[in-house]
C-alpha cells in the first residue's frame, strides 16, 4: 500500500484555471493537424475555402486576443484521483468550480451556464458549475482533463436503447442518422464520439470520453478500430462537408468506446464535437 500524498486543493484550482484559458485560445495540436489533413483531402473548392478560414481562425485565436469560438462552452472536467491522494484545503468540487470561475473571468471567456434549466434560466455569470466526472484510480497522482464543449454541437447528440438483435448494423444506422440530422447545426467538420454498451447513463459518458481521445487515434481493439474506420468513411459519404456547404470532409474522426452491457440491451449514444475542439490535460 502506498504512502498517502497530500495535495492542496489550490493546485487543482490552478490547473483548471490555466486549462480553461489555454484551450479556448490555443486549439490542441492534434486538432490543428486534423483540420490540415482535411484541408489536403477536401475535394470541394468551397470546402477548402472554409477549411482555410478555420486554419486562420485557429492562428488568430492562438495570438491570445480572441477565443477560437464565442461559445466557450460547458466546462467538462474528467478527473482521475489516485486513491493514495488526500486532498486538503477545500472540497474537490469547490476547487474545480473556483478554477472555472477564475479562468473564465481572467480569460475573458463567455459565461454560458444557466442555474436552472426550466424556470428562471438565470446565467450564473461565472460559467459554473463545471460538469465533473470523477474516478478513483490506483496511484498518488491526480489527472485532470478539461474540455470546453460547445452547446450547438452538444444539442445534436442522440441516445437510444437498441435491441441486441439490431446489432452492429443498428448502431451504424443510428450513428449515421444522427450525423445526417445534425447537418450544419453542429459546425462540421468535427469529431463523432460513440458510446456503445453499459447502461442508460454509461453509454452517454462513454460517448463523451470517446471525444477526449487524441483526434483520429484508433481504438486498441482491432474490431472496434475497423468499425470506426467504416463509420468515418460513411459519415463522409453523407456529403455534408465543411459548414454543410457540400464536400468530402464531414467528420475528422469517429471514436467508439464500448463496455459490458445487459443481456437485454444495446445502449448507444452519439456525442458530436464541432471543429472547435478544445481540451487539455494536467497531471498533479
Amino acid at each position, binding site marked *: 500500500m502506498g504512502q498517502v500524498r497530500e495535495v492542496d486543493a489550490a493546485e487543482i484550482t490552478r490547473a483548471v484555471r490555466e486549462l480553461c484559458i489555454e484551450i479556448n485560445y490555443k486549439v490542441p495540436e492534434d486538432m490543428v493537424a486534423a483540420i490540415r489533413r482535411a484541408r489536403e483531402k477536401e475535394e470541394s473548392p468551397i470546402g477548402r475555402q472554409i477549411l482555410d478560414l478555420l486554419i486562420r*481562425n485557429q492562428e488568430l485565436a492562438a495570438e491570445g486576443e480572441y477565443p477560437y469560438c464565442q461559445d466557450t462552452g460547458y466546462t467538462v472536467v474528467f478527473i482521475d484521483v489516485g486513491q493514495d491522494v488526500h486532498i486538503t484545503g477545500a472540497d474537490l468540487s469547490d476547487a474545480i468550480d473556483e478554477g472555472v470561475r477564475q479562468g473564465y473571468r481572467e480569460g475573458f471567456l463567455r459565461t454560458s451556464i444557466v442555474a436552472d434549466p426550466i424556470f428562471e434560466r438565470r446565467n450564473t455569470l461565472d460559467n459554473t458549475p463545471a460538469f465533473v466526472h470523477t474516478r478513483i484510480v490506483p496511484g498518488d497522482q491526480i489527472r485532470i482533463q478539461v474540455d470546453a464543449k460547445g452547446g450547438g454541437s452538444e444539442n445534436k447528440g442522440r441516445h437510444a436503447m437498441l435491441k441486441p438483435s439490431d446489432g452492429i448494423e443498428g448502431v451504424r444506422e443510428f450513428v449515421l442518422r444522427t450525423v445526417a440530422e445534425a447537418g450544419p447545426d453542429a459546425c462540421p467538420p468535427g469529431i463523432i464520439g460513440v458510446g456503445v454498451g453499459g447502461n442508460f447513463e454509461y453509454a452517454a459518458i462513454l460517448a463523451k470520453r470517446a471525444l477526449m481521445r487524441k483526434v483520429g487515434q484508433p481504438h486498441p481493439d482491432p474490431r472496434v478500430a475497423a468499425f470506426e474506420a467504416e463509420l468515418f468513411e460513411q459519415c463522409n459519404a453523407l456529403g455534408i462537408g465543411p459548414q454543410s456547404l457540400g464536400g468530402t470532409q464531414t467528420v475528422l474522426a469517429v471514436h467508439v468506446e464500448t463496455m459490458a452491457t445487459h443481456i437485454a440491451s444495446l445502449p448507444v449514444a452519439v456525442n458530436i464535437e464541432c471543429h472547435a475542439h478544445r481540451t487539455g490535460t494536467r497531471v498533479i
Partner: protein
Amino acid sequence: MPVEILEDGRKRIRAPLSDEDVRQLAAGDVVLVSGVVYAARDAAHKRMIELLDAGEPLPFDPAGQIIYYVGPTPEKPGHVIGSAGPTTASRMDRYTPRLLELGLKGMIGKGGRGPAVREALKRHTAVYMAALGGGGALAALQIRGQRVIAFEDLGPEAVRELEVEDLPVWVVNDCEGRDYYEQAVAPWRRDEALPEGLRLGARG
C-alpha cells in the same frame, strides 16, 4: 445603396433593407454585411415576444433590420468586442415569424431553418444568411462597435447594437423558398456507400 454588387459577384448589403433589396439576394450568394445589425439570441427573443404579447415596444424597431444571432465573449481591453460568431438559428424558429410580421428583413446565424420559417421568409420577403459557424475570432475583426441596448442582466444574451463592416455571410434561405444547404450537399452525397435505410430514395 442597400445592395451593392461587387466585381467578383459578391454583394454588399446595409440595413435598412426593402422588399426589393431582399429580392436581389439568392441562396448561395456570398454577401458582405455592413452597418448596424442587432445581436439577439435565445433569452432575448423570448423576452421580446413577451413584450409584444404585453403590448409593449421592442428595444429596437425590427422593420427593415437584420438580427445577428450572437452572444459574444467579453471584450479584452483595447478591443470593441470579443469572439462573435453565429449561434444555431433554428432555436429561434419559434419566435421568428412574429418578428417577420413586424418587418424584420434579415437574420444571420448558422445551420438550417424549419419549414415554418422558410414559409414566413417567402410570405414576408425576408432572407436568412449564415456566417462562419465557430469562426468567432475572425468575426470579431469585422465588428467596429457594440452597445448594449436592452436586457443587460442576460449577460452574453443581452440585446446589442453592433456596427459591422463587411461581415462575410452566405444566403441560405432566400425569399423564393430556396435552401442553399440542400443544393450544396446533394452533389457530394455518395448514396451507394450508405446503408440502405439512409439512402435518399429510401427516406420517408
